[in-house]
């Protein structure tokens, strides 16, 4: 391979060989396929929910929606139980996230306080819980004994203290100059006052990260309902969706019950089917995630970097 002396570029360039170019083209193709495989299912389900239901039932909607209508979304909102599930999911996400974040911030800060009595011991006690798990049955029996089965607070209390988030906050607090706290202390501020007036405003970035992690986890949580809740008033959206997928027959009954008169009146294209309900509920459950996702993206790289340093 001879170098061409006439080629003078300021920036150093790669030798572009045939192999390199081939790899380049291949990467574009392969990553396009990846992106398609990840994005298309969401799009596919969405266009099916807004297309004529009799076409979608027969698998005719593949790339473009046909005979667009939005009755599916109105129908779904009428299903008894679904709206209740939406409320439960929202409530647990909002309350749960708030509690988890405050606890993570507070303990993260307290575990940096050198004055704290037996600080290391308590920190280890909390951090150790990341590495063991009693198992499903002991967990189930404990919850039963505590009266937390069929109780809304089962969604909040057990996840309030989370060692991973606490460590994230603690690492962040440690990176804040100590002088800030010292100055406040000289002015006579107490532990709690320092926490609320100095620490919280400074560690906002990490709190945002933790909040988003916690919110997504709350919204997605499924196992706790499955194990500990039999009262259908406390079912979450995830659990309801799971039931809808597995009970196509009862779903049909549900549809016919809720809108038998309307089904007669509505054209075939707009009458709900098991497929249309399932897909519409899927979109309803996934939408909040897609909406917060752009905000999420700004924060998670930061969070994962801090986590990586520690982990």
């Amino acid at each position, binding site marked *: 391979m001879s170098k061409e002396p006439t080629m003078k570029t300021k920036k150093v360039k790669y030798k572009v060989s045939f192999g390199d170019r081939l790899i380049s083209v291949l990467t574009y193709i392969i990553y396009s396929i990846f992106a398609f495989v990840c994005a298309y299912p969401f799009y*596919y389900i969405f266009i099916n929910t807004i297309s004529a239901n009799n076409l979608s039932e027969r*698998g005719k909607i*593949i790339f473009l929606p046909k005979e667009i209508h939005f009755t599916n979304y109105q129908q779904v909102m009428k299903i008894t139980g679904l709206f209740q599930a939406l409320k439960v999911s929202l409530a647990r996400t909002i309350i749960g996230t708030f509690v988890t974040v405050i606890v993570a911030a507070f303990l993260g800060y307290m575990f940096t306080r050198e004055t704290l009595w037996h600080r290391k011991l308590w920190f280890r006690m909390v951090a150790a819980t990341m590495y063991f798990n009693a198992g499903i049955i002991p967990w189930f029996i404990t919850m039963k004994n*505590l009266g937390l089965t069929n109780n809304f607070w089962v969604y909040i209390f057990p996840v309030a203290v989370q060692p991973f988030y606490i460590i994230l906050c603690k690492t962040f607090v440690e990176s804040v100059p100590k002088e800030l706290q010292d100055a406040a202390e000289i002015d006579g501020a107490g532990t709690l006052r320092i926490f609320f007036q100095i620490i919280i405003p400074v560690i906002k970035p990490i709190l945002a990260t933790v909040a988003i992690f916690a919110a997504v986890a709350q919204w997605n949580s499924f196992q706790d309902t499955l194990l500990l809740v039999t009262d259908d008033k406390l079912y979450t959206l995830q659990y309801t969706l799971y039931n809808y997928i597995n009970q196509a027959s009862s779903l049909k009954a549900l549809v016919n019950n809720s809108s038998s008169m309307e089904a007669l009146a509505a054209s075939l294209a707009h009458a709900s089917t098991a497929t249309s309900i399932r897909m519409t509920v899927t979109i309803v459950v996934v939408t909040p995630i897609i909406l917060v996702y752009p905000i999420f993206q700004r924060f998670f790289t930061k969070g994962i970097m801090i986590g990586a340093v520690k982990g």
Partner: protein
Amino acid sequence: MKEFFSNKRKVRGFKEFLYILPFLILVLIFSYYPLYGWVYAFFDYKPPFPLSWDKFVGLKWFKSMVENDIKLKQLLTVMRNTFAMSGISLFFSWFPMIFAVFLNEIKCKPFQKVVQTVTTLPNFISWVLVYSIAYSVFNSTGVVNSIGMKLGLFDTPQMFLQSADHIWFKMWLWLTWKNAGWAAIMYLAAIAGIDEELKEAAKVDGASRMQIIRYITIPSILPTYFVLVMLNLANFLSNGMEQYFVFQNAFNKDSIQVLDLYVYNLAMGSGGYSLSTAISILKSVVSIILLCVTNKVSKLIRGEGFI
């Protein structure tokens, strides 16, 4: 004076302890107290009745795992599934790394950004949603069957989700669909930390792109890879149950049931509370040993552990 000062410090430290006490109690209740439930493995526990000493059976449940042929066979099948699924993901654990390396090579930044955004999204949806998507795409009227039949690949709709064929590999594919983009972020962060001068120097020396990847990029992110492999190994027995729970059905149950799911099915399905607790105790013991061993190995090789 000095004593007074240190006393004040002590009082303050104790006051601070009182502040965190409620949270420590939460940890005790929800993380430590359930460990007490392990005693159920040594009793013949039938749910509505409280424990009493005449129900004490000692190691009966532990022995029954190996003495009872049916149970032993079931347990062996479950172990085979667990090892297969964990083994496949361990075997392909390099995939997110390579994914990140070549994604980083893409020159067109908007394209790179779009790919990264889109492939990370599935990580944030629940397994129930993944299953719902799988069901929509792969059921008898789903898009895969529609297109497959149009192209003449098969004449009758295929029951992809109801069959046990290649179920281990399919589970790995779903896991990868959900996690690969997210896992790649960690590597992308590591790649961003590589000293640019190193690459520039290599370019000046006439290294090709593949050579730079091979001799600079990959060696620099290997430590990250190593930590993740170790964590994978430590969690070898804990695949979690959610994914397998949502995908399980009567047809694939034998090949999809991993240890975590088995423990759940045994207790909630057939009321085997005590046996299921016994199995999860054994699992915990093995997991902790694995964690310690991998941590030790990590210390030996890298000079630092990950705990």
